[in-house]
């Protein structure tokens, strides 16, 4: 045994302890080494002093009863979700999840609202503001009966949106929008609704086929767009997105 190994052992010596085995050897070694002995004596004196002070700490007389009462309390509190929610860590976690969901919802919404040909469709929606009503050929029919009239106007392959079946059509026309792209349009006597129909390829529109209506706005006009094979249906009226949503809800399911 050397001074270093003896010191290592002696650091674990408790005052009043009966030294045995290697500890006994270390104590004997310290007795022969003045420097180590001094350190060891100081250590045991300090330790004894601290132990005395620590053991002067007396727990409350009714500790057992107090613990019984207190330990019943936390269990009851554990059940309170509301209390856990007030915990700052829990609040932070909840806020984090909400933020994450918000970001995901924003990204999904952005991706849904951005689609090829959107600018052209918005431009087409903007044409409604310049109309006076005189542009239409007057008629009394329903959307599903419009095909022949539109064919006469050189619009081929008209398909009626099934949701609009039976609604009163009071006017129709076929016009050419920017770069000669043909658009069929009908005025419906409900909610002052305009129905546009055009070929998706002509406008470079690519939407999920037969998906839900996609809402877009242009100035004071709101539009709802849906694609079915190569046909795009655009419903439009003056109003807000929420009004359009209400209107769409009122239509029979496709």
């Amino acid at each position, binding site marked *: 045994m050397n001074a270093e190994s003896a010191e290592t*052992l002696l650091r*674990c010596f408790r005052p009043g302890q009966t030294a045995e085995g290697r500890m006994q050897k270390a104590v004997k070694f310290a007795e022969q080494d003045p420097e180590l002995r001094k350190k060891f004596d100081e250590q045991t004196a300090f330790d004894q002093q601290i132990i005395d002070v620590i053991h002067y700490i007396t727990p409350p007389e009714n500790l057992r009863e107090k613990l019984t009462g207190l330990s019943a309390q936390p269990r009851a509190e554990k059940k309170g979700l509301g209390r856990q929610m007030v915990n700052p860590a829990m609040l932070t976690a909840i806020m984090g999840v909400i933020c994450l969901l918000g970001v995901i919802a924003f990204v999904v919404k952005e991706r849904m609202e951005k689609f090829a040909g959107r600018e052209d469709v918005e431009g087409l929606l903007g044409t409604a503001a310049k109309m006076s009503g005189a542009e239409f050929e007057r008629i009394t029919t329903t959307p599903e009966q419009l095909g022949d009239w539109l064919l006469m106007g050189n619009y081929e392959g008209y398909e009626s949106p099934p949701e609009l079946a039976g609604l009163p059509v009071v006017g129709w026309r076929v016009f050419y929008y920017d770069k000669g792209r043909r658009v069929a349009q009908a005025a419906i006597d409900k909610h002052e609704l305009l129905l546009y129909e055009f070929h998706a390829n002509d406008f470079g529109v690519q939407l999920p086929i037969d998906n839900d209506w996609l809402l877009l706005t242009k100035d004071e006009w709101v539009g709802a767009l849906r694609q079915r094979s190569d046909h795009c249906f655009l419903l439009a009226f003056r109003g807000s997105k929420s009004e359009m949503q209400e209107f769409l809800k009122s239509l029979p399911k496709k």
Partner: protein
Amino acid sequence: MSSYGAGGLQTALFPSAALAEFYRFALLLTGNAKSAEQVMAETLAEVEGQLSQFRNETSRQAWLATHIRERCLKNNASAPPAAPRLLRDDSETGDKPAVLKIEAFLLAQRFHLLPEPERSALALFYLEFFSVEEIAELLKMDTDLLSDTLGAARQLLQESLRGMRGESAP
């Protein structure tokens, strides 16, 4: 058995002297009498049903000491050490001078300011509850490292107490 409350069943497993030692241990780790009581109560409630499974008393005590320590460390993390102050007025009881009692609680607060694992190592060492080998196992270190940790802890505590005397000097 049914006459015991939630924590009554657990406290019944320990003699008063052992409970007192655990209380001192919690006090040294938290530096606060009220927190020590709270930590002990919460720990006893948490380990309810597990303690009675231990047949060996030392294992039971080691299990409880480990859980008290974990809870104290968690408690300390959420409430960092504050400047030492007297938290309990025990001057009316006991036959020793009141000033010594005050020193005991101030010592606990100084202990509380020690870093880990020095604080836990020294607290367990002074409480004489466990052997050196058991303390090393409890703190997941070998005896050589425990020896170094105890040496460093003593030095830090001595410095802290010297600072305290300096503070109280006129």
